[in-house]
């Protein structure tokens, strides 16, 4: 098992990083009065861990016995029937799904499943929880439509079903949905917190950590705990015992992008643009999300630039990323950004050095 999973805290008491949030959640649950919840925060900050621990706190170990199902729905939409298929993860107490996978038909999923859950309401025997929990991932990627249809549904069925929503950026969740939930902001762990977790894992695994080694991993992780633990494990596989100056290897795609960045800085010509296109395609076919590529590219370029140019370059990065979101095919926009950058940079070089 990967360390990320092995050392994932199973209960709210064992949570290391967001212990204050965990205590609050515990209070919520013991009062039997759980509202709808919206967890938001950057990736690798521990949203999912907290949700799983919360479910366990609510329903006991039964919440961990999950089965994966491919569910089919037939939705009657006026004149025609829509067939939908979606993978769900469910236990007797909760259902977890990723409605945005259904694309533009996500709204039917949301409505159907909530209504279905409301119908099969668990009978409460000893005044125990008479509700099920629906965990929706990536609500920020839900269409506006689906979000709108959520709002009244949330109110109507609140007796039989609680929603736990999980997303990266709460700006993309409509105000109407946000105002119906208790918002939980999960911030990315600070570097010293990451160090603490790494040391904890190191102790459990019986590893000798040279001083400052954990701190270096934490620094490279960009405040993502998941990433820190993964690269810690990678280091362990590469070389043990750890040495003081052991290289913490960056992700291969990051190296690749930094290569692209230096290519662009070296030469600005249509020929080079053509070469860069090949490399960009390489990244995209390997499923690196285009906005991540663009952001990383900007990061690499900003490192090498004069502060004079930074404003303009970041403006264009934002501009093309926005267009990419509106458009269909990402490669055009990334390439347009590269071309734009080349033009700006060349202009700058000519103006300065003649």
């Amino acid at each position, binding site marked *: 098992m990967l360390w990320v999973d092995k050392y994932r805290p199973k209960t709210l008491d064992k949570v290391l990083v967001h212990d204050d949030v965990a205590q*609050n959640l515990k209070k*919520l649950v013991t*009062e*039997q*009065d759980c*509202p709808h919840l919206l967890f*938001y*925060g*950057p990736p690798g900050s521990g949203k999912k861990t907290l949700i799983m621990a919360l479910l366990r706190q609510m329903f006991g170990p039964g919440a961990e016995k999950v089965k994966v199902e491919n569910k089919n729905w037939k939705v*009657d*939409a*006026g*004149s025609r029937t829509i067939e939908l298929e979606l993978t769900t993860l469910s236990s007797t107490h909760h259902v977890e799904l990723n409605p945005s996978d259904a694309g*533009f*038909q996500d709204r039917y999923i949301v*409505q159907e499943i909530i209504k279905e859950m409301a119908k099969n*309401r668990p*009978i409460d025997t000893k005044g125990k929880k*008479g509700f099920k929990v629906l965990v929706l991932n990536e609500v920020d990627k839900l*269409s*506006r*439509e689906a*979000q*709108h249809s959520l*709002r*009244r549904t949330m*109110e*109507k069925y*609140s*007796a039989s079903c609680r929603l736990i929503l999980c997303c990266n*950026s*709460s*700006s*993309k969740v409509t*105000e109407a949905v*946000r*105002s119906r939930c*208790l*918002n939980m*902001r*999960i*911030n*990315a762990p600070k570097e010293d917190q990451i160090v603490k977790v790494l040391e904890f894992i190191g102790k459990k695994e019986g590893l000798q950590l040279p001083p400052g080694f954990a701190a270096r991993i934490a620094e490279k992780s960009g405040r993502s705990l998941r990433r820190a633990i993964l690269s810690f494990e990678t280091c362990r596989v590469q070389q043990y015992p750890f040495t003081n100056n052991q290289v913490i290897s960056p992700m291969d795609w990051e190296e690749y992008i930094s290569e692209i960045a230096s290519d662009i800085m070296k030469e600005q010509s249509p020929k080079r643009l053509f070469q860069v296109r090949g490399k960009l395609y390489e990244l995209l076919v390997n499923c690196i999300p285009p906005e991540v590529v*663009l*952001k990383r590219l*900007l990061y690499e370029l*900003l490192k090498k630039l004069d*502060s004079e140019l*930074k*404003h*303009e370059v*970041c*403006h*264009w*990065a*934002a501009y093309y*990323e*926005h267009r990419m*979101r509106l458009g269909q095919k990402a490669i055009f926009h990334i390439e347009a950004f590269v071309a*734009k950058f080349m033009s700006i940079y060349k202009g700058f070089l000519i103006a300065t050095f003649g």
Partner: protein
Amino acid sequence: MAPLLQSSQPWVEKYRPRRVKDVAHQDEVVRVLTNTLETTNCPHMLFYGPPGTGKTTTALAIAHQLYGPELYKSRVLELNASDDRGINVVRTKIKNFAAVAVGSGQQGGYPCPPYKIIILDEADSMTEDAQASSLPFSDHLVVNSNALRRTMETYSKVTRFFFVCNYISRIIEPLASRCAKFRFKPLSEDIMSTRIVHICKEEGLNLDSEALSTLSSISQGDLRRAITFLQGAARLFGSSISSKDLISVSGVIPHEVVQALLAACKSGSFDSANKEINNAIAEGYPASQVLSQLFDMIVESDDFSDEQKARICRKLGESDKCLVDGADEYLQLLDACSSMMKAFCNMPEGYSNDI
């Protein structure tokens, strides 16, 4: 269905006014509807106004007061954006409902006038969010309301429509002209405080005056929001709530964070601004909220010239639009801050688009 635990009910529902005259701050509507209760005479209604001002509450309250709990189910049809599917469903639903004639006569002390009520909640969102869908939802209301127009007139003897929406401009003119229109005003601070104090008393909460004013200001006239915040804070922090607790529940960003960002922009150093932005994103603050708080600060500040303010506000608006389109938070924030920096340093504006 098992009886609900009283505590598990959201306070918004628990303290929803059950009678029209309990609806706060909307005197005009209340007067007209109280009149309706006496005479049982009622036009089609169109309620519009910002969220959390009591539109749905009023519509539900009048329906309950007219028919009482027994007849309510058979006389009132409540449709909202969550329920309806296609235009056909809506059309047949409304038609079927409207077509059945009803008798009059008082029952159980309720007036029970000889017509039915159809409440179309969130009427404007039906059109707005339809584009993404494959169904002929676009113009949901427009198409539908053309059908509705006739329905309204044909069945006007036996039905009354209550439209509830946020933006009256999204309701087509022929529909609007058939209705008595009422605007729901955002709640003033006193009225909001009175309601909140009332709820605090019922729930046994301790709220000092500072927290009370914080609550009024962060909820911006939206009573539902205020009550939700209050309930959230009560659940997390127990019965005595400070203004800091409220801020942490509401998702408002602490003043210092935005202040630091603004200071970094003022310093003119791109890298320090970049660092602050990275920090804000890692802390999980939503970019749209950062923008709106930056906006408040800049408009109120005396440090900048009007021209600088104008430049910045325009950029903030553009970035906000991009965020709504789903653009990346970090990039948009960086772009907005870079423009702010340029405005502070009076650098020329804009970039040429030619390559």
